């Protein structure tokens, strides 16, 4: 009787512990996904900023001004 009771207790405890472990794993995965989404958003923002800076630096207007300045310097 005692053996059966203990076996049942162990079984219930094992099921509970497994469920806790699964829930923890689930939460950890959700955290990872949120972290990755945040990282993705941050990288996209960085990409947008860098792209803007690159485009500003290589804009035809700016390149033309540099070209004109260089031409002026050579002439002098």
């Amino acid at each position: 009787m005692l053996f059966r009771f203990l076996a049942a207790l162990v079984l219930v405890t094992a099921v509970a512990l497994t469920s806790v472990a699964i829930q923890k794993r689930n939460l950890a995965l959700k955290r990872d996904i949120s972290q990755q989404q945040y990282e993705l958003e941050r990288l996209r923002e960085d990409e947008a900023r860098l792209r803007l800076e690159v485009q500003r630096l290589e804009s035809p207007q700016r390149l033309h001004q540099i070209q004109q300045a260089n031409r002026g310097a050579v002439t002098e």
Partner: protein
Amino acid sequence: MSTSHNESRGRIRVVGIVILLMWGVLIARLLHIQWWRQEDFTSIATRQQVSSETILARPGDILDRRGRLLATTIAVPSFYVDPAALDNPHDFAAQVAPALGLSAEKLAWQIQEASERRFLWVKRRLTEEERQAIEALQLPSHACGMKVEYRRHYPQGSLAAHVIGLRDVDGQGRGGIEQTFSEQLQGHDGKRRFVRDARGHVLDVLEEVTEPPVDGAEITLTLDAVIQLRLEQQLDALVKQYSPRGVCGIVLDPQRGEILAMGSRPTLDPNRPQDASEQAWKNLCISAVYEPGSTFKPLVVARALDLKTIQPYDNLDCEHGAYRMGPRVLHDHHPYGFLSVSDVLVKSSNIGMAKIGESLGNEELYRLALDYGFGQPTGVELPGELTGLLRPYASWNQYSTGSIPMGQELAATPLQMITAHAVLANGGRRITPHLLKSAGTPQPQHVVVSQVVSPQNARWIVQGPLHDVVERGTGTKAKIEGIEVFGKTGTAQKYDTAAREYSHSKHVCSFICGAPANDPQVLVLITVDEPKGGNAGGTVAAPIAANVLKESLQYLRPHQFAQQLNDTSAN
């Protein structure tokens, strides 16, 4: 003994019944809460625990035809305050205002005015320095905070400002492509729901009910930033030299109807719209309406040739400079005798054109104006396009027969004029001018509306008279060595509404040219409103248009045209 025993048993029974009743009430209440009102309480609990947050959709970029960025979006913080949570608005304003460059008195007044509200923007779209200054103040988080918003940037500055337009502080498109494609560029915001505890800490993000944001579409235009820059530099040079009331220019691919560049002066920098003058908001290419003058003449000649009311080898008597049409006497700038059809265009003879107008008649003149697209919008993807002015046929009279062929009595936008000339340049097809190359999905490259002129006559006009206009006519200043240029000058007197006659001092000068004449690739129109120190399209607009044309061809076909130009300069 037995009596007291019975009494105690009775009491126990009563107590038992009372306890049972209490349990019964509790069970009934439990069932009421858990069963009957389950949904109500669940929704109340959800409202208290679950809150949602908007995930902003990133507005789409605008690119030129070669992928250069014309408009993009960057996330920046905006600073807000909860006025109801502030004990002393004056202290708060005194702390915050210097960091944000605001007036402390005005800010304190604004907070006091909104004292019953729970949200008030203090300043939107902070700079990095402002954000750092606010963070250094370590303000109470329950009374104020930062929210991320998107800020539009235009890395090319004022380049193509009228075409691109801008997005206002609320993300709404104002003018240009930003307004026309506001919905596609905007995208759709998403929603993130999460569970909070009693202290407001996030416990869980409910992924299964999150609506992902749909970012705005990336829009690619037919514009080319390099050609646009060349055009705008030439427009600036023109403004410097002639101080006109307004000036605009368009570069068009006549075969596909693609607008390669479109510029207008005065202009604005969409990064600093607060500095723009009132006139600078106007895109003259689509919102200025002028009488076209002589640039209209080739369109009439092409129709007359199609209807065979004249032949290319005909000679027209230009009456030595004076011709009576009913009660009116028409004059030419120079007296001419007989002129060939080609020379009527080359010399821009008004009398020759009036005679061609007589051969067509008012009905056909009206029909040709409609066929070329006058009096109706071209359909370009820009807001605020005007239709020009084409009076109803019923109000035309014998004056119209002489006036319409020389480009008077009707008015058109510069875009309508270049679109009409594209018909001649591309072999007679009327094509919708457009700016959109793609908006996420490929767009049709061009829309052929109708065949307006026969290909032979269109080719004859371009390679014959219009080429001669540049070689030996009114447009010789547009000659480019090594390239077969065709073009037509236009010098229209402006109508003086006060004097009720055409002004002798106010003109609109224009020049439309294209090249190469045997296979036109580029068409350029320059329109100058009231230039000072010059009043002829051939002297004011033609050299500028030729410069734009030359630089566009060198850029678009470097191997073909750079070689030709080099050969010429070597000779």
